[in-house]
């Protein structure tokens, strides 16, 4: 180490004090070769890290969409369970089938996502899985008691609904963690892109300055190998920088547009199903009124998410569709508050509110699926080409180093 330090120190003094030409040539050559190798290695590592971080961000975004799908299906199932309870002993068979399908999808989804997320998130999802078993048991007890006309069924339903709320809170925590992972990976990808520039531009300066000095000192127009090395370096900086920047920009654009819109669509659907479920609960509680505060909070969340989605996508159809349901809900509440519980119940189960909500469900389901697919495609294609760039950078760094050796070697041979 000391020997190496002494050699570098002597070489630097030679450059600084204008030592003899061969020494200065060797110094420029060694310095340029070291930086060229660093450029190849660190540039490739940086691009690799950006590639990997964007890949991890893509994976986190897909898990986010998957967890949101689980949550939407859970609140959908809970909404159907409450709606069927409100129907009394005679349930809607098709809705019951949908309830069972959704619950099975929740169960499968929890296992599938649980295998792909970080341990803390996986632990939360495992807890939700355990709660899901208890939830379905409570719903069955609510259903069985309701069919016999036993009021304890309503208590079982309330307990199940409270449990669903707890499960949704856990799923929201996992989503929050996944959002942070997406953002952290984007930040990491951003930082990783610096290595190419931190080594490339100093290398270019070294090559141009060294090449210029050689040309001047040996009265030649151009040292071809050094000029080619500088050209290759500049080309890599421009093309590599552009590819890196483009990958980053694609990932950020996807995050800011399709992924954010898919995120908002899922949030809106979840909040809308929660609102719809609370509408049923309010009617089951028959005019207690207090639960409508919960409806209003959920509806406000849905409306807010849809408004933001409208700004991002430019398509504001769902704002109007949900607004129609909100108006129909107000009519349901007005009927119930005015003492016409039967009218309110009919409107909620099969009347205007039911029709308006079904329209929102259908339209938002299509939008969420389309945005989710768009986000997944955009996020996964953002890093395309970076793997190749990494290899090219590494080989190019070595090639530049070789050209530097050849370029300075030609002049050094004149002193042998």
């Amino acid at each position, binding site marked *: 180490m000391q020997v190496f330090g002494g050699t570098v120190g002597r070489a630097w003094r030679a450059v600084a004090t204008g030592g003899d030409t061969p020494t200065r040539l060797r110094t420029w050559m060694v310095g340029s070769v070291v930086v060229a190798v660093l450029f190849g290695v660190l540039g490739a590592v940086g691009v690799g890290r950006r590639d990997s971080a964007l890949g991890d961000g893509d994976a986190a975004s897909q898990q986010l969409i998957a967890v949101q799908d689980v949550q939407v299906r859970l609140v959908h199932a809970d909404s159907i369970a409450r709606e069927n309870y409100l129907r*009394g*002993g005679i349930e809607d068979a098709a809705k019951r089938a949908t309830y069972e399908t959704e619950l099975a999808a929740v169960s499968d989804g929890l296992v599938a996502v649980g295998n792909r997320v970080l341990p803390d998130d996986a632990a939360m999802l495992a807890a939700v899985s355990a709660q899901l078993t208890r939830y379905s048991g409570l719903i069955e007890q609510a259903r069985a*008691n*309701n*069919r*016999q*006309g*036993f*009021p*304890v069924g*309503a*208590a*079982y339903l*309330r307990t199940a609904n409270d449990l669903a709320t707890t499960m949704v809170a856990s799923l*929201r925590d996992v*989503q*929050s963690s996944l*959002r942070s992972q*997406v*953002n952290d990976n984007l*930040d990491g990808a*951003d930082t990783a*892109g*610096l290595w190419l*520039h*931190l080594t490339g*531009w*100093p290398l270019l300066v070294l090559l141009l*300055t060294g090449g210029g000095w050689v040309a001047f000192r040996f009265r030649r127009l151009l040292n071809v190998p050094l000029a080619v090395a500088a050209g290759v370096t500049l080309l890599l900086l421009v093309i590599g920088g552009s590819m890196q920047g483009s990958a980053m*920009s694609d990932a*950020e654009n996807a*995050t*800011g*547009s399709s*992924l*954010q819109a898919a*995120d*908002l669509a899922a*949030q809106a659907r979840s*909040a809308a199903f929660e609102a719809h479920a609370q509408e049923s609960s309010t009617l089951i*509680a*028959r*005019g*207690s*009124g207090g639960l409508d505060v*919960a409806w*209003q*909070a*959920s*509806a*406000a*969340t849905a409306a*807010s*998410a849809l408004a*933001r989605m409208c700004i991002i996508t430019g398509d504001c159809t769902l704002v109007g569709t949900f607004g129609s349901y909100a108006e129909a809900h107000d009519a349901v509440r007005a009927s119930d508050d*005015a*003492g016409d*519980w*039967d009218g309110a*119940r009919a409107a909620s189960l099969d009347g205007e509110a039911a029709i308006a909500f079904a329209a929102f469900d259908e339209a938002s389901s299509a939008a969420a699926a389309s945005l989710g697919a768009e986000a997944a495609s955009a996020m996964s294609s953002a890093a395309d080409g970076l793997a190749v760039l990494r290899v090219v950078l590494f080989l190019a760094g070595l090639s530049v180093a070789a050209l530097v050796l050849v370029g300075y070697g030609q002049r050094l041979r004149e002193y042998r």
Partner: protein
Amino acid sequence: MNARTRTSSALAVALPALLLVACAGGERLPAAVQGEAPSTSAAPPAQTFTCPADQQEVGDLTPKSYAPDGPLPSPDDLPAGSTMAAIRASGTLRVGVSADTLLFGARNPQTGQIEGFDIDMLKEVAKAIFGADDDTVYDLLDIVVIPYSQRIPKLRSGEVDIVAHTMTINCVRWQQIAFTSEYYTSGQRVLVEATSSYQSIDDLAAAQATVCVPDGSTNQENLARDYPQITAVAVPDISDCLVAMQSGAVQAITGDDTVLAGLQVQDPATKVVGENFSFEPYGLGIAADRVDLVKFVNALLAEMRDDGRWQAIYDDWLAAALGPQSPPAARYGRTEG
């Protein structure tokens, strides 16, 4: 400035610029959207009510209500400006009831209607005000289902005209609302698993057991006062207690025997044990400032005791579960102010 200095200066300017470009933060995912419900007016601070010493009816277990002003007026002859006339003009009687107390107030899932002893009492009040018959009277009830804890607040806020919700008449509640004369006499007991060895509230107290009780009920007050060694689990409704016991979270439920009978019907694997350890006279709750309505209902109840309507309603709903019983006698003597 020589060439080397110029190069250094250019690098000094160019590199930070490049770094800035490379580090420029782009789009990130924002936190989840959280909508807020429109703000509602803040709840008034909770008041504490106590029973004044001069109103404590020690040794007189039947609380007194306002005596009727005379015979029950006909529906077409309600006093002008009275609460009853205002209710008749509004078109519906707003009533606060339970929808999950089998036999007293519970929703029939086949008909969608809430039915029981309490509901039939309210139907009689509606008939007396509107002159309706059996077929139309249910539609004149504007039913608001309320938990135990909301019985008094809903009356005080004016959201309902009358509450029929297995509500015990007591002095502390008289500080907040008014009661009609007693329309049913109940007592507090305990419900346990059919296989349980507990035979009374004293057994549960000795074992320092965990017992479920409806929040805001006199059952809760009695338990806290007389059996402090019992761990009470308060839930919004008595049905929640059955869920708690069926899931093993509590060892027993305490409540009025009438309510426990309804729970036992829903779960035959349970039994009501022990003697009554409290006296629970039920009254219909009415806002404290609607004394005319209290007197009107008292006149109606007096008629029902005499003409057999009370007995018919009792026989319809409760006789099978609780055995034969006669209407409780009315006690009057309360004066306004």
